[in-house]
């Protein structure tokens, strides 16, 4: 995304373009949060407080499993798909709408390649929380932080986006382990508290 959006923000006003990207990320995250939160509410209406027990069992178990894959402890094929945000959107939709749509698409979290298995636990947790506010908070923060990470990378890259991409790619494995370790700690925290 840095390699795609970086050169594009040189075309228009850089800060406006990046703001559209962040807005897209927040809206995308919030949108999927509303869907998951609402379906979670329906599930809570159907099974009542049993959902809280399901949450405390399923979410930590999923986090443990995802953490094991992200840390490289569990040698199974990660769940992912090959779809990426279409590079043609800024051409077909227009400059700023295209950049907004990229943010929206990435903010959804589950429509593009899954870099970390721990990411898959977020929509699961948002659904099983059975609470609209919680679901939106979980997914909107994901969308916002993912977009802000792109903004941070583009802002610090200068004009050398290829070098920025290389630098990011060299950190993918340590980042994956950091995410896995975080998921492990959070799994323990949910069980303990």
């Amino acid at each position, binding site marked *: 995304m840095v390699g795609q959006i970086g050169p594009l923000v040189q075309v228009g006003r850089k800060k406006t373009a990046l703001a559209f990207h962040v807005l897209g990320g927040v809206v995308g995250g919030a949108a999927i949060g509303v869907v998951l939160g609402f379906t979670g509410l329906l599930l809570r209406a159907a099974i009542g407080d049993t959902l809280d027990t399901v949450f405390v069992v399923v979410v930590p178990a999923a986090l443990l499993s995802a953490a094991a894959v992200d840390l490289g402890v569990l040698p199974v094929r990660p769940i992912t798909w090959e779809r990426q945000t279409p590079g043609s959107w800024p051409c077909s939709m227009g400059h700023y709408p295209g950049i907004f749509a990229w943010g929206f698409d990435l903010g959804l979290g589950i429509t593009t390649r899954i870099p970390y298995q*721990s990411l898959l636990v977020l929509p699961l947790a948002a659904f099983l*929380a059975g609470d609209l506010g919680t679901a939106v908070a979980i997914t909107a923060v994901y969308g*916002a*932080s993912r977009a802000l990470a792109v903004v941070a990378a583009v802002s610090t890259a200068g004009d050398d986006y290829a070098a920025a991409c290389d630098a990011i790619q060299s950190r993918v494995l340590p980042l994956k382990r950091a*995410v896995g370790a*975080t998921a492990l700690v959070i799994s323990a925290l*949910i069980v303990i508290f």
Partner: protein
Amino acid sequence: MANSARLSGLVGLAALTGLAAAALAGGVAKPAIGALPVFVLVSLSLVVGLSTAASP
């Protein structure tokens, strides 16, 4: 140096925003699962989101 400072600032801003969202969702909405699970899950969202900039 200026770039590192800007990067740290943006990451810090994201972290503050995320934690504020967690506090709002956990404190105001009083979710059935409890405030702490909401807080830690929003923190995980933050970590995963910020770590995913390299993804296409």
